[in-house]
């Protein structure tokens, strides 16, 4: 940890000591339920992966408050350029677990038509949750370009781009921050500093005093926030969003949190994370902290957690069953969407692939006739 103290609203006890959060009971409940939905989706996907029903997943346990707190500061007309550990932002704005589960199974209903690995979501409604790619940091300058387009049309849309501590070492972080600073673009850069870039800890990632300080070099404010404190994230990201919306330019927010699982289901964090560190953060679970706050506000009682989590698990479980029963994508989807219009060479290759599959008897009923 560094010398800069993160901004915090909810104390570990649950008290907020005079902070005004300005959120209605309904908004607070939605934040709470979304965090439980993230955890339910996460838990379900881990089980599905371990039982061989899906190939891959990205654990989110421990970082739910960052995602949901940040998303809650956005309007549906705003855009999110997410990393692969951000799906709570989509859930907050109304993306259905079923639509996400279609992606986890890569089936015919998946918005990416089964072309991407699981967790690489793409949604254009009810909010722009821009298609995720695996390379780190490439989406950061894209958010700035999208913001430039909104500026030119004199729209007040805000663009939030999210990345991890490792992402701050990428080319895209520096070019994106630099362009946004020069253009005074309406962008919020959210660095979720979860302690590790796969296995690489902060001290091997940067020699600077944390990540928020990097904002200074690009001429924008940099703020450190307690990432396990939903109200603090909401407050800090909310201020950045409003500044951007009013033409005040970009902000870098560093949310300090901890990833309680592996980088992915292919990773074993016990090989590199000290046990004591996990124990330290286990006591600082963002959902439990928010519950203590809700209880003090009179909005939560014992039993609510189990009831709501069960509801979420049922919704996610039903989504998984439905996604599992959905057919795989048709063979033609390998060849469509490469270009707006399919060039002749892809028609030939598609026809050949279809003919071979038919001849070898491994075509699916849903494959249809290749469109020649």
């Amino acid at each position, binding site marked *: 940890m560094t010398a800069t103290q993160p901004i915090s609203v909810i104390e570990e006890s649950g008290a907020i000591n005079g902070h005004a959060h300005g959120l209605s009971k309904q908004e607070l409940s939605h934040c709470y339920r979304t965090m439980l939905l993230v955890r339910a989706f996460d838990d379900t996907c881990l089980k599905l992966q371990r039982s061989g029903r899906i190939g891959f997943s990205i654990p989110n346990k421990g970082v739910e408050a960052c995602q949901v707190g940040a998303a809650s500061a956005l309007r549906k007309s705003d855009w999110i350029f997410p990393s692969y550990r951000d799906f709570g932002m989509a859930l907050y704005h109304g993306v259905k677990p079923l639509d996400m589960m279609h992606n986890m199974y890569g089936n015919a209903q998946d*918005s*990416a038509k089964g072309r991407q690995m699981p967790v690489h979501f*793409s949604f254009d409604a009810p909010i722009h949750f821009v298609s995720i790619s695996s*390379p780190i940091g490439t989406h950061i300058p894209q958010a700035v*370009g*999208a913001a430039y*387009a909104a500026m030119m049309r004199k729209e007040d849309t805000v663009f939030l781009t999210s990345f991890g501590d490792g992402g701050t070492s990428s080319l895209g972080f520096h070019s994106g921050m*630099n362009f946004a600073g020069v253009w005074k673009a309406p962008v919020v850069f959210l660095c979720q500093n979860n302690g590790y870039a796969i296995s690489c800890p902060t001290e091997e990632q940067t020699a600077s005093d944390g990540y928020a300080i990097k904002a200074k070099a690009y001429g924008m404010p940099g703020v450190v926030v307690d990432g396990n404190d939903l109200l603090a994230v909401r407050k800090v990201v909310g201020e950045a969003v409003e500044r951007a919306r009013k033409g005040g330019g970009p902000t870098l927010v560093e949310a300090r949190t901890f990833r309680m699982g592996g980088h992915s289901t292919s990773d074993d964090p016990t090989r590199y994370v000290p046990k004591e560190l996990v124990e330290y953060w286990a006591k600082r679970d963002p959902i439990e902290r928010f519950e203590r706050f809700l209880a003090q506000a009179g909005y939560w009682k014992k039993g609510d957690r189990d009831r709501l989590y069960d509801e979420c698990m049922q919704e996610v479980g039903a989504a998984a069953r439905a996604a599992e029963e959905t057919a795989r994508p048709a063979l033609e989807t390998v060849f469509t969407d*490469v270009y707006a219009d399919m060039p002749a*060479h892809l028609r030939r290759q598609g026809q050949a692939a279809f003919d071979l599959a038919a001849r070898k008897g491994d075509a699916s009923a849903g494959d249809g006739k290749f469109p020649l």
Partner: protein
Amino acid sequence: MATLTLLQAVNDGLKTAMRRDPSVYVFGEDVGPKGGVFLATEGLTKAFGKNRCFDTPLSEDGIVGAAIGMALNGLKPVCEIQFQDFIFPAFDQIVSEAAKFRYRSGGQYTCPMVIRTPYGGGIRGGLYHSQSGEAYFCHTPGLKVVIPSTPHDAKGLLLASIADPDPVLFLEPKALYRSVKGEVPEGDYSVPLSTLRTVREGERVTVFCYGAMVPQAVKAAEQAAAKGIECLIVDLRTLYPLDEEGVLEAAKRTGRVVVVHEAPRFCGYGAEISAMIAENIIEYMEAPVARVTGFDTPFPNTLEHHYMPDDRRILDAIEHVHGF
């Protein structure tokens, strides 16, 4: 019709695009008030304002990354990379992002955008102001790669590229910027992408070429004609997606093929043409395909005239396949 250089035709194409479509934005390093290091964007900031034609920080990754974001959000960005040799920081943005957005989002997000960049040798630019990197990009599904060789095509292909719904890498042969002139229609017109141009008719040898190699091939063909060898010269002008059927037809007509490019030979564009012919029409061929290319070395400076294919090397290849 005005008589313009290729560079003036590019400039005219940009102005035409910006006039017809208010969502067209032009930007890159030094492209604003200065008008670009070659002056391709001269006068655009003055005519269309500093929001629509502007300088960016010196970051190719940032330029292309921001262009992608603009395209995702409804603009038609036309960005410039000052020299193709400097495009590699943006390789990830082009290959991993622009070329894949439509596919990976099932069509939810698309990147209608153009990346213009001068390429190729002939200006004593040495290793880093001379390269022809087209092969790297032609290996990228989702991307289109276009190279004009005349002022007419430079404007018409640029307008077609800007109107295209997919990302286009528009490579401009800098050696021809001021050395070729030609008639260019005024106003809006387009030359369709993925179409070939027959430069010269002939029945003995087919020469496939593009960009700055086209005038060299024409010179070689004139010398060959004096020796009784009439050459069919085809300017490929859109390298990817290629009009493959047109290429095979042109190859079949003579059964003798020469492919010319400045880029190194190994895994160069000529290898694809050669393989396409071998796979599809070997029975029509009277001679092995000959490639006239840059050497498999970095691009030299003082001795660049030895590196770059010219009429004498092309003529040698024409005579070789003709006499096989």
